């Protein structure tokens, strides 16, 4: 039996092959396939008896719709300055539509109507949450985190529900939420902008009724870190209780848990006061 890492590498190649379109390939960077999501899907399928072909069918179609939605997140809102930028933006719209069409196509070829329905329902909800976060009209941090969690995990959650593997749901949600928050933190540190931290800042402002200049960047980051710490704690609690998974996922969980920010208890007490 192939090692899970080899399976994931092979499967990434398969997805890249399925979505390959020469003209899109010429102008766009290859879409980033989320290896963690692949790992999660492979891991949950270890629990049930499912043929290799069937397994690949579900992993492929879930990843295709995920790629479609992720690709549309890359569509720029800024005025395009060069014709090359304009072309890239146009093709990004179409690449997302194309991947979305392919997800439907592969499921339809297998006559898998229930899964078409499940993933379509999840996609609908994901877009509701994306608009909430993008519009920055959330007034509670918990609601914001819930939206991020749903954006990241709803598609895979649908698969777990479909196969009655609901015990994985909380873990998957927290794992993917943590990953996203860490990514946004890194983005904010590196580039100074993060859509999620912007929405987070907005909630803080509305809660404290302050003006836009009220929080220093470091202050926002420190507050954001507290929530990351909370999610890490929740994830840690989930994996401490009779949790079994393959070694690859175990390593990945530890990597996420050990990522910056590593908050000291003293700082948490101070920040929380």
């Amino acid at each position: 039996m192939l090692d899970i890492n080899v399976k994931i590498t092979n499967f990434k190649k398969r997805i890249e092959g399925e979505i390959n379109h020469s003209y899109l390939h010429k102008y766009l960077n290859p879409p980033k396939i989320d290896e963690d999501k692949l790992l999660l899907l492979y891991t949950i399928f270890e629990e049930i008896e499912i043929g290799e072909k069937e397994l690949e069918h579900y992993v492929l179609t879930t990843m295709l719709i995920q790629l479609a939605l992720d690709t549309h997140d890359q569509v720029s809102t800024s005025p395009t300055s060069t014709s090359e930028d304009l072309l890239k933006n146009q093709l990004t719209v179409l690449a997302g539509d194309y991947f979305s069409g392919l997800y439907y196509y592969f499921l339809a070829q297998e006559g898998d109507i229930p899964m078409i329905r499940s993933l379509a329902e999840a996609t609908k909800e994901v877009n509701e949450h994306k608009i909430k976060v993008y519009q920055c009209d959330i007034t509670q941090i918990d609601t914001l985190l819930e939206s991020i969690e749903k954006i990241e995990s709803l598609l895979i959650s649908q698969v777990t529900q479909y196969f009655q593997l609901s015990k994985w749901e909380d873990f998957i949600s927290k794992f993917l939420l943590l990953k996203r928050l860490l990514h946004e933190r890194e983005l904010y540190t590196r580039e100074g902008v993060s859509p999620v931290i912007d929405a987070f800042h907005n909630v803080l402002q509305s809660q404290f009724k302050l003006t836009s200049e009220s929080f220093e960047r470091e202050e926002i980051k420190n507050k954001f870190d507290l929530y990351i710490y909370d999610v890490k704690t929740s994830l840690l609690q989930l994996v401490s209780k009779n949790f079994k998974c393959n070694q690859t996922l175990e390593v990945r969980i530890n990597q996420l848990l050990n990522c910056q920010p590593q908050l000291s208890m003293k700082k948490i007490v101070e920040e929380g006061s």
Partner: protein
Amino acid sequence: MKLKMMYSFLNADIGLIEKELEATVQAEHPLLRQAGVELLQAGGKRLRPVFVLLAGKFGEYDINRIKHVAVALELIHMASLVHDDVIDNAELRRGRQTIKAKYDNKIAMYTGDFLFARALALMTKLENPVAHKILSHTMVELCIGEIEQIKDKYNFNQDLRTYLRRIKRKTALLIAVSCQLGAIGANASEDIQKKLYLFGYYVGMSFQITDDILDFTATEEQLGKPAGSDLLQGNITLPVLLALKNLEIRESISAITKDSTESDIRPIIDMIKTSSSIEKSFELSNLYLNKAFKILEELPNNKTKTALNNIAKFIGKRKF
């Protein structure tokens, strides 16, 4: 005769479809809900649902079953228009601000994805694997058609076959499939399904050619967007392709680049309008229409057939 009058016997069912559309675009988020409602209020011919219902009349017509297909196809069409406006950077559609102009590109992307997901969820109420195979194949082809359109921009050496294949993917297939799925949804015979598919395909080809002609001949008021937009964006449509055969016009057209402005294009539009290419484009449009009429002859005689016949005539003669 007005388009709606041609299928007035379907008024109650069209009304139901409109209500279903309204209910389907209801989202939890107010902005998403608003965007959906505005798209519906902008109107449109609702050609795809009409074709679904009319095609369904050739089988065991059950509005409660077929309505899901009709609504899903209109939603798919709407979703593709919302994304098209991002691609074309369009400010206006049907005389109204586009979603991307009123909000921004991101909202347009999320709205389109939301509508597409709603459409698929609704479509699954038709538990017929063949219907899904057909529609999903069409969705992929539609995207490929759009990609090809961008690839072929400013390519003045493309041939007629390239243009026809592109408009087939871009427009005709979804109309053809509306007819076919209507027939499938009503359990019509395979022969009827095939004939209705062909009817829709021919009408769809004619429809798109007429659209491409109108982009030159109609006014901004009629189009709800600036006239000549296609050429300004580098899209080589049938009137342009045919005008390219005239060496004098060819020289002017070939000079068009991404940097050309509306005032650069204006005289070229006038040259195309007054050339024989418009008339020849109409001829090709009519050729497709005649094929559509011919296919109709093979269908049973009833008022639905008359309606399809009239709609096809309307499409050939429409002014906007």
